[in-house]
């Protein structure tokens, strides 16, 4: 009996093990490991087996490349792997099962780097003067065409007493003679013959257009190399550098020197610019004083909106000569408010419209004050589009028409210019809509980039040019009637652009400087600090304003920035040589942008004033989040996400060094 019991138990246990063993399925891949050359193909054979190695013919296997592997290897449904780029990668294998007992495994693939095929030496001067230093660019490519940076460079010249090169590409010519520069990587060499000639220069002169200036003023240094006969040597490289001593030990001297001789200082002090070319050098000191542009600013009035978020706004002079404003609302009930701002100390609501939307993100008014346009997002029928409003009497505004064609995805921003509306569509393009008859608007054209994954955030019109902000595609300048490129509203023609590396271009505003330079100010929008999960704490932005010198349209140069620590740019306005910029949690910043621009404008003390709209009765209390700013008849108007519409005034510029005489 005991024996029978034992046998029964034995069979029960063993059969359980057997069942367990059958359930322990895995994917068996042949070959068991894979190492490929770039361009090589191999086919994986994957089957599902049990613990005893028995194939499960009813189980299928799906292959795909894992994370970090997708642009380096491809794998098709038959298991064929193609190696594209060197590195260690993974193939993921899945065997599905309708009962949920899915098998998932990872399979490693090594793709060997292709052998080095080419070493290129770029920017090698044809004639090199002894004693000078030039920058050489070294590029290494493998047989697959990839540029390789993970390689060791063996650098030498055939005669190190004539010239030598460091690993950063700095070529120092030591004495006249000939030699060959050689850079070798894994047996492949790039070379360039060097001819070093006697340096005819015996003297270096350094001059500048100013001897003293304020922080932020741009100097132009000019270096002249002269030979022993006093003749200028124009083809020898000159390097510029500077050192400085701050007037105040609490601050460190800093600034920017460009290799074309432009120099700007950030803090007051004595700065010395040094030019060198071989053994010749020259220096010149300049005195920098405080820019001293700060002025008092005071809040004049406040039109409170405390039950919902406020978005963009526009201030204009009405047909009756009085001054009015319109503000949008955000994430709310589709309301736009109209205000009387004639007395900036007494801003009050005079009318409103409510449309089927959650957000009226943007509002604009025509030049003649007759038509207001507002954008819609979050319409219940998902048609969104724009609303055209008769605002001849801002105290009794009337909706004239609703236009949704091709704008169903939501209109985030818009502009009105000479009877046309420029309305963004679903963040992809802008449509140009003829609203000369406001009751019967119609599309006349559109502007859309063709780059992969293009998008757009804003468009601004001035002097017949549309300045659109296109995130990674940057600032786009489009002729819609200026004539510079033969464009018109019916035929918009792009003629210039500039994209900066961060890809955060959110707004653009043109600035014709009194210096004659033409800048476009590109603003970021960034929120790297995320959201408050509860939604009731102040938000914090990042990003800054980029100043792009478009004086040469085909060669735009990013020259300066304005950045506020721990705050981020949004919308802004330029009047004369003053910038009025909303910086979300940083409030409104008033900035002197007169003169040529270079470097860090904030550090240069160009900020004239700032004002932060803190409101204890705001939608989110004491949480400034300023949306935009506009100068109108000497007052700064600004809208704030949490508190509504505000006005402020800068104190007038006072004559410097003038004492008031009492009578």
């Amino acid at each position, binding site marked *: 009996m005991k024996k029978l019991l034992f046998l029964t138990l034995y069979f029960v246990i063993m059969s359980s093990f057997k069942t367990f063993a059958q359930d322990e399925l895995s994917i068996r891949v042949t070959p068991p490991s894979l190492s490929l050359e770039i361009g090589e193909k191999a086919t994986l054979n994957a089957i599902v087996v049990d613990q005893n190695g028995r194939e499960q013919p009813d189980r299928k296997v799906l292959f795909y490349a894992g994370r970090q592997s997708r642009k380096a290897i491809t794998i098709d449904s038959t298991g064929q792997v193609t190696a594209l780029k060197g590195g260690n990668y993974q193939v993921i294998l899945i065997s599905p099962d309708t009962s949920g007992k899915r098998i998932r495994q990872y399979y490693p693939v090594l793709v060997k780097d292709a052998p080095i095929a080419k070493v290129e030496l770029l920017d090698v001067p044809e004639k090199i003067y002894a004693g000078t230093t030039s920058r050489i660019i070294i590029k290494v490519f493998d047989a697959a065409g990839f540029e390789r940076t993970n390689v060791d460079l063996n650098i030498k010249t055939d005669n190190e007493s004539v010239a030598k090169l460091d690993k950063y590409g700095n070529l120092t010519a030591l004495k006249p003679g000939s030699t060959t520069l050689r850079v070798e990587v894994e047996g492949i060499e790039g070379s360039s013959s060097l001819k070093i000639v006697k340096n005819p220069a015996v003297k270096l002169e350094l001059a500048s257009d100013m001897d003293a200036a304020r922080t932020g003023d741009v100097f132009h240094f000019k270096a002249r190399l002269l030979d022993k006969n006093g003749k200028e040597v124009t083809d020898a490289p000159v390097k510029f550098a500077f050192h400085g001593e701050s007037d105040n030990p609490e601050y460190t001297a800093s600034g920017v020197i460009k290799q074309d001789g432009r120099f700007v200082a950030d803090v007051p002090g004595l700065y010395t610019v040094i030019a060198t070319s071989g053994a010749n050098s020259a220096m010149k000191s300049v005195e920098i004083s405080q820019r001293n542009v700060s002025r008092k600013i005071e809040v004049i009035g406040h039109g409170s909106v405390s039950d919902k978020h406020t978005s963009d706004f526009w201030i204009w002079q009405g047909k009756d000569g009085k001054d009015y404003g319109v503000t949008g609302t955000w994430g709310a*009930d589709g309301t736009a408010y109209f205000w009387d701002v004639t007395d900036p100390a007494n801003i009050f609501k005079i009318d409103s419209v409510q449309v089927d939307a*959650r957000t009226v993100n943007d509002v604009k008014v025509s030049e003649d004050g007759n038509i207001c346009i507002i954008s819609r997002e979050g319409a*219940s029928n998902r048609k969104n589009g724009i609303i055209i409003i008769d605002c001849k009497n801002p105290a009794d505004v009337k909706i004239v028409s609703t236009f949704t064609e091709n704008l169903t995805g939501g209109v985030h921003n818009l502009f009105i210019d000479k009877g046309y509306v420029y309305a963004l569509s679903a963040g992809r393009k802008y449509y140009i809509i003829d609203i000369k008859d406001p009751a019967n608007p119609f599309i006349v054209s559109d502007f859309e980039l063709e780059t992969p*994954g293009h998008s757009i955030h804003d468009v601004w019109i001035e002097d017949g040019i549309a300045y659109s902000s296109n995130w990674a595609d940057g600032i786009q300048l489009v002729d819609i009637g200026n004539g510079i490129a033969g464009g018109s509203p019916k035929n918009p023609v792009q003629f210039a652009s500039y994209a900066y590396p961060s890809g955060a271009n959110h707004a653009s505003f043109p600035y014709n400087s009194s210096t004659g330079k033409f800048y476009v100010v590109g603003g970021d929008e960034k929120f790297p600090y995320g*959201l408050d999960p509860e939604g009731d704490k102040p*938000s914090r932005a990042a990003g800054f304003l980029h100043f792009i010198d478009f004086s040469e349209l085909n060669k735009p140069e990013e020259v300066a920035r304005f950045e506020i620590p721990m705050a981020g740019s949004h919308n802004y306005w330029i009047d004369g040589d003053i910038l009025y910029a909303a910086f979300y949690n940083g409030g409104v910043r008033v900035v002197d942008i007169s003169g040529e621009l270079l470097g860090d404008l904030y550090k240069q003390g160009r900020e004239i004033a700032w004002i932060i709209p803190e409101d204890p009765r705001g939608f989110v209390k004491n949480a400034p989040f300023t949306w935009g700013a506009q100068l109108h008849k000497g007052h700064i108007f600004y809208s704030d996400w949490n508190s509504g519409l505000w006005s402020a005034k800068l104190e007038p510029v006072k004559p410097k060094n003038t004492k008031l005489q009492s009578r």
Partner: protein
Amino acid sequence: MKGILVSFLLLLFCQYAHSQEYYVYVTAESEDEVSLIKFDGVKTNIIENKAVGVWPAEIEGPHGITVDPSGKFWYLSLAHGNPYGTLYKFKTGSNEYVAKVELGLFPASMEISKATGLLYCVNFNLHGDMVPSSVSVVDPEEMIEIDRITTGVMPHGSRISPDGLYQYSVGMMSGELFEIDALGMKVSRKLILDEEKGMDHGQMDHSQMDHSKMDHSKMNHGMKGMNHSKTKPTWVMPHPDGKRAYVAGNGSNEILEIDLTTWTVSSRWPCEKGPYNIDVSPDGNLLVVSYKTAGKTGIWDLTSNEQVAVIKNSNKVTHGVAISSDSKYAFVSVEGIGGDPGAMDVVDLTKNEIVTTAYLGKQAGGIAFWKVEK
């Protein structure tokens, strides 16, 4: 005495019934918020309103939501981006962020196959040109998009067959039903849903057309000129028996029964205005449909194929439907208009009436049933 006993038993039954707790996730598309709601059989309790997205001053539009078959994670599509939308992964319960991956234009509804473990999300491209869009196939463990399968114009309503081997979606503007082989990641069958064929956007190669150069001002996009699908399907839901599926004909105001064996429209049931989302009870007996335009919820008996109840929702613009795993309750999201709060109506499927309503962020839309527990 007998009455007391019956009352006692009834009380006991009610206590038992009410001791069940149901958990549901609902998105608020114009609030950038997802709510986790508990329903105890009588009332709802919002456990958390979670802010989603990263841009405080931009609406990112949480649209589609699903809970994975294990119940450990929930997935959310944020429709708007620059320009592409994003799929987010969170832990259920703690609602802790896990990972994200960028998908196509306006990613919307999605579901995970229990067979492959992969997530299939339609790229609705709601506001783009009328060109065929796609279904993104995502590995939710790695959060990588492993394939993008071209389907119809404005694909919507991604749902998986009970065995996990097929994904179904509809092309809203091309009027097509697509079946994707979930393992092979290819369209295995396509069905035209319109009775009379209009302009077949699914057959047109819009990629070769320059829509930007069309003079839209001369076209009547109000549908008189260009003929989009009359059916305008917005959702498809397979039946648990694997033999049938049901399509919401949002444009034709009908529910279409699809025979998955013969791959034909086997029946068309006229219904209220604007059927939008559909769910079928896990026991296979009931179909619940949101009537978006009418602001109502319909309950259909799938044994008689008759509509047994039409319930007016708590506000306008009814959106999504999710039925509890015990087939007792339907949770229905309601968008509202403008500044209205969004809502979730709880419908008792034994009484065909709304039990309670939870008020949520604006434009409540995507809805996913998580779990029921005692």
